Every structure is written in structure tokens, then in C-alpha cells.
């Protein structure tokens, strides 16, 4: 009755007697093991059945006959289920198999044999490998912008679950290949492969499969590599000798594609594992290749952008403040953090000396990023020129307005322009937040009279204010990035800034700005700034100095 029941089971079932001989196998088991009758199976020692396969446990360690659950059970050892990978030495087909053994006992508890259920879990296991290789590579590709390291990680992630060997070669614009990563289960074979590649005869001719994949962007699969194939591929005896030692069984070369271009190839091979690649393996490798290609391309773009940004930044960041006789100066500059990490913004300040008199322009170009950065350069260069041609705050602003109006786009710039004298400043405003003067007693004044923003109105003119400054008084210029800084309690706001400054009477410019920086950081809770922050503080030194 049991026999009948087992025969209709889809699961493969075998029974061993207490001596270890297989005494029963159902139809599914016979089909699975490749036998046509139980008699044929019984006549074949189970060790020799196993010898037809390359058998490993799920961690890639060789699995011996003595370690399979039924054999262990009959020896009286614990017999946990075993998940094994078996590759047919003849066909290269791979199967994942779960072996579960149960003891068969009579009523007296005497051991009658071991019943083993053989479950083919290849579909589940292959899907799992696929998912984990992709997930692992996805994590690696996202993790690091150093693509050499990333590609080494990707090659390692493919070995041994997908292949015994994985190499990544990038191709440059001249068509030169560069090996960036290679990984093999067997380090000795990796060395051998390196020797092979260094042979003078191992050049990549246009008919080489790697060259073809680069040229066509189409994968190539050599499912079964024969001795004849090796002989044909070999350029000479030495080459052939190494190829034979490597002993590849199956090989695939997949392109690393970005739109319109193949930037490299991934080569995957099996040898010792005896596995044969299938179109599904090629598909998975192609996915890896695509992902790796995107990561490389992103990293390269990022490198280019960083170079541009660094160059721009060195030009755009405000220079160190000059020494201005009679005045103490300090500045605070924090560019907004952008996703490109181009730390340049639209805030600027520039101090220029002309015939013994110091001029300063403190401003903010609307917008962000490269466009704002370019206009900032224009405003700073314009300031240096205008201060020499027409050294009056209102006239300097008029020149900057003219320069900005000639630019296309709707860019605006707000600015304060000042001319520093011993006991006063002449200040003009072009739509910029008013500067705040902190007196010795903590009272505040805001200057100067507002004037029109730069780049907006063709007929504009700018008023000039004479602002008396007594020694010890502090004047603070700031951009709207300060007051618009967002925190949990809304925006920082001009009232909070005023309140902060009223507590700073008598302090030196540098210490006031250090405190303000800390205050802003605390206000945002340490979050990134969304707009540039620039502040310059000046204090007239006592006359005696």
C-alpha cells in the first residue's frame, strides 16, 4: 500500500536498508536519479551514482557520500536535512536538491531503514540566487563612487553563486581594454589567467569574442567549451597549455551598456564547478552588466562634476577678507548644500581699495547652482572694475545693474555697496536686506534707505546714505539666507536676528559671527542649509589705533 502511495507522489522517495543499500525508489526518484528501473538502481553502488555529479553543500563545500542524511542516520548520527548543489559531470546541468531523511522503525523501535525524500528546489534556489546577486550588486553599486572598488565587489558577488570566475574589463574611447576587476574561486587559477592575459600573443584581435561584444553590444554564450575549442582559440603551445590548465567548461561575455555605448564587458566562466551556463544565466549577467555600467557612468560623471565644481569653487568662494585700516572685519559664509555637492552659491562679497579708499559690495544673486554661480562671478568682477572707474556707491550699483541687465534670463541681484571712511560709511542699497548697526548699549539701527533691486528696472537710480559709525559700533551685513533659514519653529526671521544682535554689544566681529553660526546650526537642528548664508561684520577701531 505504501508503495502505491509513493508511486503517485511527485516527490522522489528512496529507502535504504540498515546496511545502506537502496531497496526502494519510487518512479519520481528513478527519473530524478536517471535510472529506468529499481533493479538497475539497486545494482549501482550509491557512491558511484554520486560520482557522476559534482556535489557541494549550499556553502560551496564538497559534500561526500558519507555526509548525506540517510547515510548519517544509518550510522546513528543526527541527520539534519541537507541542501546540495549537484552538477552533472556529463551534461553540466545543475540541480539544487533538498534531502530529508526519516527513520523507519518497527513497533519495537528497531531500525528498519531510512526513508529519504529528495526534493528538487532548483527553481526556488535559482530565483533566490538571482534576487540575492541583484540585491547585493545593487547595494554595492549604490554604496560607493569609487567604481574600481565597486566593480571588484560586483565581480566578487557573482562568484561562486553564479560562476567560478568573473572579470570586468572597461574599454576606453580608443578601444583599449583595462582590466578593473577579476575574481576566481581558486586564487591559483586567477594567477594563471593573469599570466595568460600577459602573453604577448594574447592580444585582442577584432575577431576575439570580447572585441565582438564591445563592437556589437550583444552577449556571447559558449555553453560548452570543448578541447577542440581550446585548441582553436590558442595562439601557440604555451597559450594552449595555460588554457588547458584553466579548463573552462562554460563561458559568457556580456556587455556593460549605457545608452548608445558599450563601456566594458563582464566575462563569467565556470570550470571546477562543471556548471553549464544557460540563457537565463546570460540574462542575469546582462542585468549585472547594465547595473555596473550605470554605476561606472555615474561615478565618472560625478568625478567630472566634482572637478568642475572644485574649479568653480576656487574662483567663486569669497576670498579672505582684506586688512582694512581702521576696521575690524569678520565673515561667515556657508553655501547651501546641493545634491551635486557643488558648494557654490549666489551670495558674494568683495572689498576693493581704490586710491586709499576701501569699497565693499555685499550681495546675493537670485537662483542657485551653476547659473547663479556664473552671475556671481560677473558681479564680483564688475565690482572690482566699477570701484575703480566710478568710485561712488550709487554709481557702482548702476554699473552692476547695467552688467546684469545685459545678461539673458531673469536674474536679479540684491546688493549693498559701501564706501568706508574713518568715522562713517556711505551706503547704497539695491533691494538688499538692511544692514544692522549694534551700538555700545545694544540698541539697533537699520541702514540704508532701500533702493531698487539690480537687473529689474531700466530707469533705476540708487540713493546714498551717510551713516555715522562711532568706534565700537558693529555693522552687520547679511543675506536673506540668514533670515530665511528654516527650522522646526519656522524661519529664523529678522526679529530673531535683531534679538540675537542686541545681545552682542561690545563683542568683536569674529566672536559675534561664531555665535551666529552656532545659533543657526542649532535653529536648523543640524540639517543642511537650503540657501546660502553670508554675513560680514565690521567694527570701527578706536581712533588711537
Amino acid at each position, binding site marked *: 500500500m505504501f508503495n502505491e502511495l509513493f508511486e503517485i507522489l511527485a516527490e522522489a522517495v528512496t529507502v535504504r536498508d540498515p546496511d545502506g543499500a537502496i531497496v526502494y525508489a519510487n518512479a519520481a526518484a528513478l527519473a530524478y536519479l536517471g535510472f529506468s528501473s529499481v533493479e538497475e538502481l539497486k545494482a549501482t553502488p550509491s557512491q558511484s551514482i554520486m560520482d557522476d555529479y559534482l556535489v557541494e553543500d549550499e556553502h560551496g563545500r564538497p559534500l561526500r557520500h558519507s555526509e548525506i542524511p540517510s547515510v548519517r542516520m544509518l550510522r546513528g548520527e543526527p541527520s539534519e536535512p541537507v541542501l546540495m548543489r549537484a552538477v552533472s559531470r556529463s551534461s553540466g546541468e545543475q540541480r539544487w536538491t533538498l534531502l530529508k531523511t526519516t527513520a523507519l522503525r518497527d513497533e519495537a523501535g528497531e531500525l528498519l531503514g531510512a526513508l529519504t525524500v529528495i526534493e528538487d528546489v532548483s527553481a526556488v534556489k535559482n530565483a533566490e540566487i538571482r534576487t540575492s546577486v541583484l540585491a547585493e550588486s545593487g547595494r554595492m553599486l549604490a554604496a560607493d563612487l569609487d567604481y574600481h572598488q565597486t566593480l571588484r565587489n560586483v565581480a566578487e558577488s557573482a562568484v561562486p553563486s553564479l560562476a567560478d570566475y568573473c572579470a570586468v574589463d572597461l574599454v576606453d574611447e580608443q578601444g583599449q581594454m583595462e582590466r578593473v576587476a577579476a575574481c576566481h574561486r581558486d586564487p591559483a587559477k586567477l594567477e594563471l589567467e593573469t599570466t595568460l592575459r600577459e602573453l604577448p600573443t594574447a592580444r585582442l584581435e577584432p575577431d576575439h569574442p570580447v572585441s565582438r561584444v564591445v563592437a556589437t553590444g550583444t552577449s556571447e554564450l559558449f555553453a560548452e567549451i570543448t578541447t577542440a575549442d581550446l585548441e582553436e582559440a590558442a595562439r601557440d603551445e604555451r597559450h594552449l597549455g595555460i588554457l588547458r590548465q584553466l579548463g573552462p567548461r562554460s563561458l559568457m561575455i556580456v556587455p556593460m551598456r549605457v545608452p548608445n555605448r558599450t563601456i566594458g564587458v563582464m566575462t563569467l566562466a565556470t570550470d571546477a564547478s562543471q556548471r553549464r551556463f544557460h540563457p537565463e544565466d546570460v540574462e542575469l549577467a546582462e542585468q549585472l552588466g547594465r547595473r555596473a555600467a550605470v554605476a561606472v557612468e555615474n561615478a565618472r560623471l560625478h568625478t567630472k562634476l566634482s572637478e568642475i565644481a572644485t574649479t568653480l569653487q576656487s574662483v567663486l568662494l569669497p576670498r579672505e577678507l582684506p586688512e582694512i585700516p581702521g576696521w575690524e572685519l569678520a565673515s561667515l559664509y556657508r553655501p547651501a548644500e546641493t545634491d551635486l555637492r557643488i558648494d557654490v552659491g549666489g551670495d558674494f562679497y568683495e572689498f576693493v581699495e581704490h586710491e586709499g579708499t576701501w569699497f565693499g559690495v555685499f550681495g*546675493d544673486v537670485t537662483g542657485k547652482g551653476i547659473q547663479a554661480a556664473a552671475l556671481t562671478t560677473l558681479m564680483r568682477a564688475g565690482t572690482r572694475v566699477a570701484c575703480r572707474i566710478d568710485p561712488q556707491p550709487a554709481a557702482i550699483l548702476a554699473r552692476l545693474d547695467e552688467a546684469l541687465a545685459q545678461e539673458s534670463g531673469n536674474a*536679479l541681484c*540684491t546688493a549693498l555697496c559701501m564706501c568706508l571712511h574713518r568715522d562713517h560709511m556711505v551706503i547704497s542699497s539695491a*533691494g538688499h536686506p538692511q544692514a544692522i548697526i549694534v551700538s555700545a548699549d545694544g540698541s539697533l539701527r537699520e541702514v540704508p534707505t532701500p533702493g*531698487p*533691486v539690480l537687473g*529689474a*528696472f531700466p530707469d533705476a537710480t540708487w540713493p546714498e546714505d551717510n551713516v555715522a559709525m562711532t568706534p565700537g559700533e558693529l555693522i552687520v551685513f547679511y543675506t536673506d539666507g540668514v533670515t*530665511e533659514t528654516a527650522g522646526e519653529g519656522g524661519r529664523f526671521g529678522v526679529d530673531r536676528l535683531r534679538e540675537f544682535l542686541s545681545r552682542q554689544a561690545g563683542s568683536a566681529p569674529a566672536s559675534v559671527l561664531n555665535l551666529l553660526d552656532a545659533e543657526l546650526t542649532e535653529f536648523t537642528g543640524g540639517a543642511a542649509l537650503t*540657501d546660502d548664508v553670508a554675513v560680514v561684520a565690521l567694527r570701527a577701531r578706536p581712533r588711537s589705533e
Partner: protein
Amino acid sequence: MRVLKLSGELDVASSAALEQSVDEGLDYDRLVIDLSELEFIDSTGLSVLVAAHQQAVADGREFCVVQGPAQVQRLLALTGLEQRLTVADTLEQLLTSG
């Protein structure tokens, strides 16, 4: 006449969308941007208003704004826009003036 009523915050993030609406609105003989319910405007927002003003002047069309709350008005005053743009106290005022 086309009226664009703004609410929330007009900053770098939202200015591009307004720019688009202004482009379409400038096909009308009169474009009104109602700032009365706008909570916040920054310099990018101002630049959209200035661009609308410049375009309207060039095309010989009318462009007006309805005044906003204190922060918005402060910035309009500070940058000189208040004197140069046509600013109405309320939308009704503009509608009745035809």
C-alpha cells in the same frame, strides 16, 4: 484678464511653476497676480514678478499685483518693486476699476 491667486510659499521650489503660468497669462491683455494669501516670498519669487512686469511693459499689456501680507510687502518695498509695479490693495479694487 487672467488672475493668478497664489498661496503658500513662493520660493525656488515653486517659482518655476509660477513662471509657466505667467507665460500663459501674458497672452491676456491684463494679468493679475494676487499675493493676498501668499505666506512667504523669496528673491527667486520676486524675479518672476519682475520678469512678468518687464514682459508686460515690452508687449504693451497690463500687469498688476494684489498686495500681500507684511513679509511679502516688506520685500516688495525693500527691492523697489512696490513703487514700480502696479499694486492694488484688493482684487475687488482691480475688478471694479475694469
